[in-house]
């Protein structure tokens, strides 16, 4: 997985801090999918996810001029987002794992899980079923790592900050989770 060169974050952050709307728009464009993925990786509802994303962006706006190292922006955003997710989960007092159907319903925004599955090809449905059968940790890891930004996947630093693990552990963890996913696909195909 390619690491995006973080070198261009510095001028972006500085320009946004100086009041340039275009630079701010670029920052939003780069990271808003990652923030959404983090919220959904923590199984927040659409409404709660929207709240968390909003507060994360507002926090960034207030702190733009204070960020010491713009290269660390992905980690800063991810950590802020994750912590707000945890606060929401505390409020909801909900930590039981959700059934695969519930997750699909939430993801698809439908009340009828069957409708959502009907729009998928066989191959996609198998992939979805396999993903839903993964343990919660692998689901969370993969949900964050496979999100695509405008110009490539988000950085390992961001994912590590989200998942609360050292960046060096991410590669092996990603590999293990993808292997499990692949194994589930193969088992399903063999039935």
């Amino acid at each position: 997985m390619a690491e995006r060169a973080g070198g261009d974050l510095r001028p972006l952050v500085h320009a946004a801090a100086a009041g340039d709307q275009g630079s701010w728009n670029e920052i939003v464009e780069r990271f808003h999918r990652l923030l959404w993925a983090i919220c959904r990786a923590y199984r927040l509802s659409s409404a709660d996810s929207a709240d968390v994303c909003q507060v994360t962006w507002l926090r960034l706006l207030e702190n733009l001029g204070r960020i010491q190292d713009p290269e660390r922006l992905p980690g800063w955003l991810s950590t802020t987002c994750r912590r707000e997710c945890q606060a929401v989960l505390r409020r909801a007092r909900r930590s039981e794992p959700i059934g695969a159907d519930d997750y699909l319903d939430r993801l698809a925004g439908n009340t009828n899980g069957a409708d959502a599955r009907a729009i998928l090809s066989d191959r996609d449905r198998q992939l979805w079923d396999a993903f839903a059968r993964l343990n919660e940790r692998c689901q969370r890891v993969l949900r964050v790592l496979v999100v695509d930004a405008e110009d490539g996947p988000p950085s390992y630093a961001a994912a590590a900050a989200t998942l609360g693990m050292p960046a060096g552990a991410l590669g092996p963890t990603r590999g293990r989770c993808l292997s499990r996913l692949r194994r589930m696909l193969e088992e399903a195909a063999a039935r």
Partner: protein
Amino acid sequence: MDGQNVEDALPPESDDALAARLGALLERLDPAPGLLAATARDAFGLTRLDADLAELAFDSWQEEASVALRAGDEGPRQLTFEGPALRLDVEVGTTTAGAGSLRGQVIPRGRGHVEIHDATGSRRGGTEIDAAGRFVLERPPTGTVRLVCTPEAAATPTATDWVVLG
């Protein structure tokens, strides 16, 4: 290829290919709403307060504590904000009706005024800070909010970090 799934002939997917396929599927099933990005972009243009920032230094609901809930672990949420000119401790009380109140303590102690703003920058409530630096804001709005404190002795207001109440 009678009766044979054409995919049987494909080599096993690489990690990158599988990840890309999963990413595309999740993007289809659960895309980040465009409205959220638009709202984030628009937030840039909102009027900035001429105020010091009191950062969120502590949120009892953001602790990495064990998820297992102990009996009696239902205490009110505690927030602490720290800025260059003041520190603000807030207890988020709840009532059975759910509306609740914000009980605050400002250090250094002294009279002043405090307001609560929503994400559009609108004032959604306010009250006086007493001589001991205390205040109570009844029935705060839910959602993304921040407090703006103006002690009598201060030249500049202090605005807290945004938090989500609810």
